[in-house]
């Protein structure tokens, strides 16, 4: 092996890390690639953990994004079950637990996030989070013995788990502090839809719920008392109240961080030759005045592709508007764009029939869409945002036309 070969070290071995490795090799990167990951597995996909895997419809072996053979064939070194404890930017080396060091020419943080915990629940034996394969396995093996699960936090992961647990006959309470579900990520119409959907499936949704006290019996939580005076029994608590970026290593190494490791449009951090990609990165996004940290598979893929190209001195990839999906019961929600600055919303489709979309506008500028069982609107809007077409609120409100018609019209207007 040539000694002057460039050495690239990736901290983390999740979705973003494997995508970066694959993308570099596909583009004929000839340096050395070393992925160091804390988890004892090949890179795997997390989305099924709270969906098909928990339900027992997808076995463990099908979670892995690439087989071992891929790592061998593409000469990607994976050091798994090893945690990077220190990054030394002066000497360009990382050190793992046990003391082994690896030197690098280029370094990538693909460290993801970790679930936030409720301090009072720390260490209790029947409290769980849902981030890793081990978390999902731990929950899955217990399901048979559970009668009643309390999910703290009405976000995507908690609601997906709620849907699966209901299907398995477990009683589920979802406690959400905000006045609606998924408040941070979707609009009110969709929150209402999901509330109805879960209630129709027997989930007890408690909005504006503040926990007064967790009732303990030894090291386990037996009940939850809310501020309205009600108390409910529980066999297990699943905490889904959001995540924290794994950025401490970077911060200690003198790399700028905020709510995430701060990067530029090439995914490069404040230190040249060091990148951050995926859930842990605070990145600039088209049309946004402030940098944002996104938590999704498409974001991890997009950032990995962007970093790969920068490492190889290639042009940035075409703009990919942020998107996401979630499956709950037989409902698929797909969202594209960023809705947070919207001033107006328009609904298309049939809410009662569970097939509709909510379009978000800021004055006359189209920002985003949330589509419930309506892939046509999602795909139309994904293309509209990608191509920079001007979708008007007037067009959206004309339900005599399909979103396909509207998209085609916009496309011909452009040329």
């Amino acid at each position, binding site marked *: 092996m040539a000694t002057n070969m460039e050495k690239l070290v990736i901290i983390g071995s999740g979705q973003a890390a494997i995508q970066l490795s694959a993308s570099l090799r596909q583009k004929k990167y000839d340096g050395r690639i070393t992925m160091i990951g804390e988890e004892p597995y090949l890179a795997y996909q997390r989305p099924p953990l709270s969906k098909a895997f928990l339900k027992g419809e997808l076995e463990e072996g099908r979670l892995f994004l690439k087989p071992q053979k891929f790592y061998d064939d593409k000469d990607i070194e994976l050091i798994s079950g090893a945690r990077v404890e220190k990054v030394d930017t002066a000497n360009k080396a990382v050190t793992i637990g046990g003391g082994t060091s690896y030197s690098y020419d280029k370094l990538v943080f693909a460290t993801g996030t970790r679930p936030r915990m409720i301090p009072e629940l720390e260490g209790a034996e029947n409290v769980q989070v849902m981030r890793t394969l081990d978390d999902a396995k731990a929950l899955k093996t217990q399901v048979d013995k559970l009668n009643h699960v309390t999910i703290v936090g009405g976000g995507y992961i908690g609601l997906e788990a709620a849907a699966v647990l209901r299907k398995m006959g477990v009683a589920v309470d979802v406690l959400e502090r905000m006045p609606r579900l998924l408040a941070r990520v979707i609009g009110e119409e969709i929150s209402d839809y999901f509330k109805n959907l879960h209630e129709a499936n027997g989930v007890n949704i408690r909005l504006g719920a503040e926990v007064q006290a967790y009732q303990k019996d030894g090291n386990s939580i037996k009940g939850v008392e809310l501020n309205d005076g009600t108390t409910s029994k529980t066999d297990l608590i699943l905490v889904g109240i959001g995540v924290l970026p794994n950025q401490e290593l970077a911060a200690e190494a003198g790399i700028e961080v905020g709510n995430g490791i701060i990067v530029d449009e090439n995914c490069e951090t404040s230190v040249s030759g060091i990148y951050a990609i995926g859930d842990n990165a605070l990145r600039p996004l088209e049309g946004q005045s402030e940098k944002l940290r996104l938590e999704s598979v498409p974001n991890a893929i997009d950032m990995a592709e962007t970093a790969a190209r920068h490492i190889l001195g290639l042009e940035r990839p075409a703009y990919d508007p942020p998107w996401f*999906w979630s499956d709950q019961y037989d409902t698929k929600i797909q969202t594209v764009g960023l809705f947070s600055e919207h001033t107006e919303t328009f609904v298309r489709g049939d809410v009662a029939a569970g097939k509709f979309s909510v379009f978000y506008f800021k004055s006359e500028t189209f920002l985003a869409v949330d589509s419930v069982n309506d892939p046509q609107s999602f*795909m139309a809007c994904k293309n509209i945002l990608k191509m920079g077409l001007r979708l008007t609120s007037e067009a959206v409100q004309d339900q005599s036309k399909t979103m396909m018609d509207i998209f085609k019209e916009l496309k011909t207007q452009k040329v």
Partner: protein
Amino acid sequence: MAKITFVSNDGEEQVIEAAEGESVMETALNNGIDWIMADCGGACACATCHVYVDEDQLEATGEPSEMENSMLEFNDHQQSNSRLSCQIKVTEDLDGLRVTAPESQY
């Protein structure tokens, strides 16, 4: 077991023994076919696992769902024999299947 032939853009053919029960997309990914992206991992949410199925074999692959059709109809490279490979389940009936790469997955 079913033998599936994957044909890349430059006409390169790879014959793979596919395991029953997995999807054609999974068969591809597990065997180093790099023109199938499968960004969403088979959730029928991304349309980056697009393939062309030989016309005379379309029937054997089953009917695409409404969801799949909607995902495909915006694809610039859609043809009458387009399918999302994550939605095709491998069965013995698919022995001899040939799937071809579209010009691009994006």
